[in-house]
């Protein structure tokens, strides 16, 4: 039981010691933007994990690059474009609308409409 309590507290407090001052930002807004961005960008080395969840060397590099780009005053859109140009569209969890992603975006709506039509006509018979 004592060990369990010890582990519980060490896990809780370790996040404070590791989590602080790992990256440096000019402002709190920048920091917030960074932590939102790394949740929206996939680690290119992982099967499916965000940059936030990854310690792979390339993820660390990308994170430092994002901080650099934020400091240079780039917008979120520009940062995402920068990364998708280099690592492909698959790094974005929320890929933009293009001819490759029409199916991805419109298929769910199409299926929903088909299903609604199906029920609509079935009730009337």
């Amino acid at each position, binding site marked *: 039981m004592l060990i369990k309590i010890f582990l519980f507290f060490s896990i809780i407090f370790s996040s404070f010691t590791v989590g602080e001052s790992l990256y440096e930002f000019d402002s709190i807004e920048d920091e917030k933007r960074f932590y939102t961005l790394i949740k929206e960008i996939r680690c*290119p080395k992982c099967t499916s994990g965000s940059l936030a969840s990854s310690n792979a*060397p*390339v993820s660390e590099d990308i994170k430092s690059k994002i901080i650099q780009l934020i400091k240079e005053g780039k917008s979120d859109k520009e940062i995402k474009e920068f990364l998708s*140009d*280099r*690592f*492909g569209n698959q790094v974005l969890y929320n890929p933009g609308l293009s001819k490759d992603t029409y199916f991805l975006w419109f298929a769910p709506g199409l299926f929903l409409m088909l299903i609604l039509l*199906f029920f609509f*006509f*079935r009730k009337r018979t």
Partner: protein
Amino acid sequence: MTIFIRFIIISTALMFFTFFYLYINDDKYYPGADFTTSNMPDFEIKDLYSERVFSVKDLDGSYLINVWASWCITCRIEHSFLAKLESNNIPIIGLNYKDEKDDAINWITKFGDPYKYIIHDYKGELALDLGVTGAPETFLLNDGKIIVHYRGEVNDMIWNDVFKPVIMKENIFNAN
């Protein structure tokens, strides 16, 4: 009414099959390979052996750029194939990725040097600009444009499936 339902079911099934048929038969798709053309990013990086600084201006013509490191096990397996390419007069530029200078030089002395020259990207800055996720990775360059990017080990099979068709099509390296 039943005709309508049948129509919906059949057309949905057909849609799925067409989608997967197109997906499977996509000639351009090859795991690990990227055939989109992009500009070679600007860089200024030192040579591995000397203080000479290379930039994008030194990359006029057609080259392979091979990303390697002494800590990379797969690079050792790939190395003999690169030597074979070099003996076929294909110019390869080494991009030493996140490696200590001494380790890299020792590795090359031990296993041989198939590269025209090696640039030492210690911090991985150029590699990040190129979209490198690890080592080995290989790029095919034609007149300052990247036309193939392959993530992983290049061997006979990859060479014939990924690089050769593009080389023949663009008629580079005297199409050998």
